[in-house]
């Protein structure tokens, strides 16, 4: 592999990792508030199709983003209602959401199959930074949503660790009784975290159909939503590690598509198994080594004041 090929591969890894950053940070927020959302895959698909439909209708890429985020948020309200208000079992409701999103997106998306995106996001070189050797082509010749994704983990990290509302959110995930005693409205915080998390999953889906592919195909996420959830475990619930992990997974994904160009003799189908096998292996190592270090103490546990 030449240096140029390596740089191109790493740039592609950043692009491929972007939906994982967006969805992963969203899931991290929800989980740190104590709510597991296994519906990411379905929410991403709905975000992808709704964002795409909006762009087809208006030819305005940012309206597509708004639509994808809005659709994700709406599904988040549903998940929050089931898990926070009703206290339903989070694994099951999350699976229901994943299946619902898959079905809904395929239903709504039928007329959009085969239509090109009239206004996809295109790469914008950041003046000055784009010409820095190596780093420039990797990080600063991307589209606007990628730049947004750089800031997201930083902002979320700062907000979680350094601000009072962030502290409250973590308290809800670690020990809702104590948070309640501190005067935090646990239900409201969890609603906020789940809705924000799902909105980000919607955006992650939108990224696929508005910038990455850019088109709509059924099940176009191909398991990225589940990988995003695995990534949160991999990152031990820390936004910074999540960013690094997302690019690592992005690199594996890209390798799967490009290995043949680099002269690796293997079936493209076998190479497409790589991200899943890699996720499996990484999770295995993480679990064996650290036994879920960093997991919020009250993750998955409903909280009701009267009990």
């Amino acid at each position, binding site marked *: 592999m030449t240096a140029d090929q390596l740089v191109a591969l790493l740039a592609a890894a950043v692009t491929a990792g972007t939906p994982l950053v967006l969805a992963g940070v969203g899931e991290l927020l929800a*989980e740190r508030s104590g709510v*597991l959302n*296994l519906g990411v895959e379905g929410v991403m698909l709905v975000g992808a199709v709704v964002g795409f439909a909006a762009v087809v209708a208006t030819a305005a890429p940012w309206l597509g983003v708004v639509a994808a985020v809005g659709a994700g948020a709406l599904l988040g309200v*549903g998940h929050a209602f*089931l898990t926070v208000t*009703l*206290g*339903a*079992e*989070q*694994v*099951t*409701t999350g*699976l*229901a*959401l994943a*299946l*619902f999103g*898959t*079905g*809904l997106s*395929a*239903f*709504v998306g*039928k007329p959009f199959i085969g239509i090109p995106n009239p206004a996809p996001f295109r790469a914008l070189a950041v003046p000055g930074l784009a010409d820095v050797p190596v780093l420039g082509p990797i990080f600063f010749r991307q589209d606007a949503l990628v730049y947004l994704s750089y800031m997201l983990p930083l902002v979320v990290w700062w907000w979680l660790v350094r601000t009072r509302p962030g502290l409250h959110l973590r308290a809800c995930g670690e020990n809702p009784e104590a948070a309640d005693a501190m005067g935090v409205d646990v239900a409201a915080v969890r609603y906020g975290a789940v809705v924000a998390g799902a909105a980000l999953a919607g955006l992650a889906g939108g990224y696929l159909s508005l910038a990455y592919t850019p088109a709509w195909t*059924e099940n176009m996420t*191909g*398991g990225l939503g*589940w990988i995003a*959830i*695995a990534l*949160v*475990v991999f990152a031990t619930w820390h936004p910074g590690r999540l960013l690094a992990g997302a690019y690592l997974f992005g690199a594996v994904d890209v390798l799967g598509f490009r290995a043949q160009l680099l002269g690796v003799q293997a*079936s493209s*189908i*076998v190479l*497409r*198994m790589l991200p*899943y*096998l890699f*996720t*499996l292996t990484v*999770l*295995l190592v993480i*679990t*064996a080594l650290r*036994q*879920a270090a960093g*997991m919020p103490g009250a*993750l*998955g546990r409903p909280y009701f004041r*009267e009990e």
Partner: protein
Amino acid sequence: MVTTARALDVAPAVGRGVAWAEALLIRLGAALAALAAGAVVMRAAGYDPWMAYREMAAGALGSWYAVEQTLVKAIPLALSGLGVSLAFTMGLWNIGAEGQLAVGALAAGWLALGAPGLPAWAMVPGMVALGAAGGAAWAAIPGVLRAAVGMNEILSTLMLNYVGLLWVDYLVFGHWADPTAFSFPYSRRFPDSAQLPPLMGAVHLGAVLALAAAVGLWLLLRHTAWGYEIRLIGTSPRAARYRGAPVARNVVAVMALSGALAGLAGVAEVGGVVHRLQQGISQGYGYAAIIIAWLARLHPWAVVLVAVLIAALLNGGFVIQTTGVPAAIASMLQALLLTFVLASEYVVRRHRRRRAVAAARAGLRAGP
């Protein structure tokens, strides 16, 4: 991520004594609400829901042919639904029926394509055995990982779904590809000896397998010591450990058995319906199985019944495509059904708990 074994919290959802009639009513109400929500979505997408539901019903049950097609679809759904519900009974989240079904189909196909000269009396039982073994092996991987290092089985079974389906793709585009269907995602056709014998029209031997599996599972869970142990681990893992139940060994065994049933679903599809391996062999049956297991509250008889209903829904969704409504309406309705039943159960349960708490408080105030 939730890593502890946890029972599906279904038993207390509706009080035990009174109520299966009540439970049935709640479910019917939830089902109607799901249909209404589906109608809203259809209307929003510009379709006529009333027409759609009518056409779906006709397509699923309107003729003998339709009923046969529905029953044929119910076979893999019942088998994988039984597998999933067995795992759920022990609090194991096997979300991998989709991949286990694919590997089961693949293992059966390996025999059918590899030894085409076998007579039917050897071929059919061989495919059944290999398919079950394939599904079991695929499910045993997350089982072992869970038992040995405590790895979350939701994510591992899911990842293996993608790997299993890609493995099928690899073979149907590669070594097993049908040379006459150039570049189509089909394997060569299986020999005639590899066809599951028909029972009634399109309904094939798989129906017997499904019913036998339901009976077997019911006997296992309700009438054997091992079944009792499985249920105990599901409802109260701590109590089970105190009683000395070998939890780790059961995790592997139950996952394997659960996967074996999904593998049989794969055998039913390749041996009974498509007679070859093809891309998308499962059509989402493994995910529908999760919904079925839940709606049936993990009871084997109910799984068979619900599988037929979901098969009708899927078949109706398939038929309705001719009128322009996408078949995905069926999978959306399934998920809505699950969501509404889940919501209704928790509403009922919380309502009861509040009532019980209020009654207890009133009792305390009144004094002895």
